[in-house]
């Protein structure tokens, strides 16, 4: 019974993707006329159209230019701040930490207008940098890394300090390796969050050539009205890299997700 329910769930969760994969190698005529899963005529023309006509590679590259630096910055930044909050004692530490955590209560919709004006003042409208600069820190990341680094025994740090190690060395050689599992969960989580983000890039990036993958993909609905074979090919190209990453890092992602219940 339990297995049956799970098999039905598995079917329902994957079927739309299978249908999309099938439509992406069909001709337009077949997509709108046939309901068979396997195409009568296999074609890769849809993929060629997408790559040539939509500026797909540019969008892919743009998305990577935001998601990769943001992930590196968030993981290293959160680990460093997490280390300071976990292991240092200073005046006002807990108040400061609570102040940072309070930003989790602010929904993005609420700050989108002032944030847009801030980006305008920095001259970053329509530039990838405008999206990147707002993604450089993560409150959830700081919270997660502090929790994780608090479990590192103080003796390790004291031993290293007695031997004359600098704080930077301790951070790189002791803290980072020991907080590896949380850091990789955070990395996968941050990368996918940035890669899939639509709202902010769609508001900020208006000119072609500057847009990220989700924005370009969403634009296909007005660019190719009801040309479902092209939509399917474009969606496939967007979804496949993410699926591969998820398959390789399933454990990290799910642990990140179950910890995200703590934010809110």
């Amino acid at each position: 019974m339990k297995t049956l329910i799970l098999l039905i769930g598995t079917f329902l969760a994957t079927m739309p993707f299978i249908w999309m994969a099938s439509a992406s190698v069909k001709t337009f005529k077949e997509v709108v006329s046939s309901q068979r899963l396997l195409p009568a005529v296999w074609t890769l023309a849809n993929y060629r159209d997408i790559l040539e006509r939509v500026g797909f590679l540019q969008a892919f590259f743009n998305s990577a230019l935001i998601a990769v630096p943001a992930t590196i910055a968030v993981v290293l930044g959160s680990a460093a701040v997490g280390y300071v909050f976990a292991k240092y004692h200073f005046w006002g530490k807990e108040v400061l930490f609570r102040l940072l955590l309070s930003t989790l209560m602010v929904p993005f919709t609420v700050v989108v207008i002032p944030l847009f004006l801030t980006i305008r003042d920095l001259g970053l409208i329509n530039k990838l940098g405008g999206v990147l600069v707002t993604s450089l820190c993560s409150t959830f990341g700081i919270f997660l890394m502090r929790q994780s680094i608090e479990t590192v025994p103080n003796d390790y740090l004291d031993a290293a300090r007695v031997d004359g190690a600098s704080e930077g060395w301790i951070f790189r050689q002791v803290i980072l390796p020991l907080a590896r599992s949380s850091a990789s969960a955070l990395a996968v989580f941050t990368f996918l969050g940035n890669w899939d983000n639509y709202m902010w890039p769609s508001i900020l990036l208006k000119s072609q050539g500057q847009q990220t993958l989700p924005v370009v993909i969403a634009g296909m609905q007005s660019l190719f009205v009801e040309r479902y074979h092209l939509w399917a090919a474009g969606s496939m190209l967007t979804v496949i890299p993410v699926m591969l990453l998820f398959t390789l890092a399933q454990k990290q992602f799910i642990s990140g997700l179950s910890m995200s219940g703590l934010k809110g």
Partner: protein
Amino acid sequence: MKTLRRPQFRFGLLVLVPILVWYLWFCFRPVFLGLQMAVIDYKLLDPSNSPFVGLQHFNMIFTQYELFWTAAKNTLTYAALMNLGMVPIALIFAYCLAHVSRGRVVYQWALFLPVVVSMAAVALLFRFLMDPGVGLFNHVLRAVGLPPSKWLTGSSSAMYSIVLVALWKELGGTIVLLTAGLLGIPVGIYDAAKVEGANAWQVFWRMTFPLLGHTLKLVAILVTIGSLQVYTSVVILTSGGPARTTYMISQFIVEEAFTHFRFGLASSAACVLFLVILVVTLVQLQLSKVRWEY
């Protein structure tokens, strides 16, 4: 308490100063500006000369803007439907997932696949599947002898269609939280129930369900907070249509601000949304203080 020695002090400053500058500039200042913009008549080209107008914008959206009420009503309906659909379905899957002996990783993989892909691609995919003419959903309905639906293009079905897409996309996240909650219940109490001769149904309703109560409340609140901010799916699936039946508060804010440049109105609507979400969040914080005793 150990005090900071020189190297720690330097490292701490090196780390904290840039982070605090970032928070000041991209978090705290925008929140302050957002509140301020709701009570001034913001002049885009000459911000320093924006006159103070008090609660005029709030008065306008509450009394003159029917569109605001439409958006508020739709958003609340959406949040309610999401809770009604998400919690029971996720609970069924989480229960099966927690108690299945083989293949858990594979089922997990499949159920979470929709969570990781971008909403933009998912929305396009479902516009294709829900096409009234050539979409798979209506083919299936016709095949089993049911009347086809207009899905996203019908004013009575559009809201349910959007909820369906969101449920499919976000179910995995809720399942993770509930599975973690279920696996956190000590096995010993189940053994005790078995000794007493309780059947599986009794065990679920009398023991699992109450013990999971705290996690369920948390899930309901997370679903509510997320649903109140819904934007991407709706904008791509229906753009708020047909006839504004799926027009949500986030779309109201974004369109008022970036299409019509009415920053004050948009900011006041954002403040209302903030207040509602703040209340829900405070309820959540209150709840998460309660530690459940087994």
